[in-house]
């Protein structure tokens, strides 16, 4: 089983009307590995993540979680049938998402946010959900804020709470959608260090980011997206130190000061 990738993204296309945002993106994410996706704004990074968990279903192509197609089912005769929303919901819970804008639910406490989906979706007994939720909050160093409402937390604390919320579902992989982009510079470090620890603990991660030093340090593989296709990919050392394409060189030069 170990050669089946945790997540396989296979030839994903996505258009909004006449605008083709993704033009055939494929890559694998193996268990315990971290793949960073970089690229200019408008390159399709965010759309890619939204396609991976079907928040925006791809027009064609498929996502596989441990070999199982997310958006379709293969029936006995080998034909493909699109999954119902309820079935997609079952697949989706295997992917933890951390959003740029945190998207915490403001009417629930931090712990309330963390245990909501485990209780309602995974049907975990409340006691177990709280115990594991508190573990997750300890991992992101936010246990002392568990009874606060999100509005009373700093941006960095809110984002760490959002990470704990995603972890609490025990997902097969975590996806980070520019998790630090809406934070003040002095708050990004506390979030990045939590993400770094997750990576070192062997969490499977897809990280869409503008933090190049983070991507270089933590990733096993870096993907440079340009105009909806993978322009270049490889190990971080290769992508950052010996970029082959002009576009990647140009893109990286903006981050070297």
């Amino acid at each position, binding site marked *: 089983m170990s050669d089946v990738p945790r997540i396989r993204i296979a030839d994903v296309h996505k258009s909004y009307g006449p605008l083709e945002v993704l033009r055939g993106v494929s890559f694998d994410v193996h268990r315990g590995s971290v793949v960073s996706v970089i690229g200019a704004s408008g390159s399709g990074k965010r759309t890619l993540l939204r396609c991976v968990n079907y928040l925006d279903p791809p027009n064609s192509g498929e996502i596989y979680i441990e070999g199982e197609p997310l958006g379709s089912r293969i029936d006995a005769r080998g034909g493909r049938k699109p999954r119902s929303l309820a079935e997609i*919901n079952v697949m989706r819970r295997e992917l933890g998402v951390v959003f740029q804008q945190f998207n915490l*639910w403001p009417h629930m406490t931090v712990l309330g946010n963390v245990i909501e989906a485990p209780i309602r979706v995974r049907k975990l007994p409340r006691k177990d959900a709280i115990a594991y939720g508190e573990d997750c909050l300890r991992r992101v160093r936010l246990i002392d804020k568990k009874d606060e409402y999100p509005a009373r937390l700093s941006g960095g604390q809110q984002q760490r709470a959002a990470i704990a919320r*995603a972890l609490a579902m025990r997902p097969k992989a975590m996806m980070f959608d520019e998790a630090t982009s809406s934070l003040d510079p002095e708050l990004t470090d506390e979030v990045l260090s939590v993400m770094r620890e997750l990576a070192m603990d062997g969490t499977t991660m897809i990280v869409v980011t503008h933090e190049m030093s983070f991507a270089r340090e933590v990733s096993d593989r870096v993907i440079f997206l340009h105009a909806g296709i993978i322009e270049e990919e490889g190990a971080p050392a290769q992508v950052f130190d010996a970029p082959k394409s002009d576009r990647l060189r140009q893109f990286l030069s903006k981050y070297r000061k």
Partner: protein
Amino acid sequence: MSDALKQSLDLSMFWEYRAILWQGLIFNVLVFQFAASVALSVGLGAALLRVNRFLPARIVGTLHVELFRNAPDYIMLVWVHFVLPLLIGLVIQRRVEFHPFISAVIALGFVYSGYFAEAFRAGIQTIPQGNLDAGRAFGMSERLILWRITLPQVVRRMLPEALNLFISLFKATTIVSLIAVPDLMYNVSMVIQQEMRPLPLYTGAALTYFLIIFALSSTARAFSERWRQKILA
């Protein structure tokens, strides 16, 4: 002080009839309770139609809101009590009559469902898309998202307006005496016919309504505001 004024402020007669008036007030509260339940549930349904992706649903929702928001309470009450049973009777070929209490609940419930629908809709539309995306990303069904994420926030946001609507609805229950629901005003009129002293009785009724509404609304506000503020940054 003129005699008329003195008489109108003498509430001893109102107090004397307190038992029967109290019974009437209970009817006001009952009509209010049932009509409020109808208004809330039908209003929520109409609001969900109004924010639906499908155009026909949106049209039905909008028609509902416009029809009932623009219908005067009194006309609706009379129409539901006298005309609607005739229409239903024509369809099912049988004589139909509504109990006045039922007519009052339907009429007021539907008129206020138009207002509540708008309050719900406005609240639903302020919920950021990201809140819903987060729910979907964790595999929550649309139903679960509605009950656990959207509505709890909507209720907090619409609370001040909802309290005003409840107050209006409670005031509106005073017109149900027109179709012979034995509410406070109805009983007041009965006593007046007997005693021929309308002034103190009407004053007493006015004061009673004022005190009840004032007490309830200020208590509700005080309690709801603290709870509401927690989530608002």
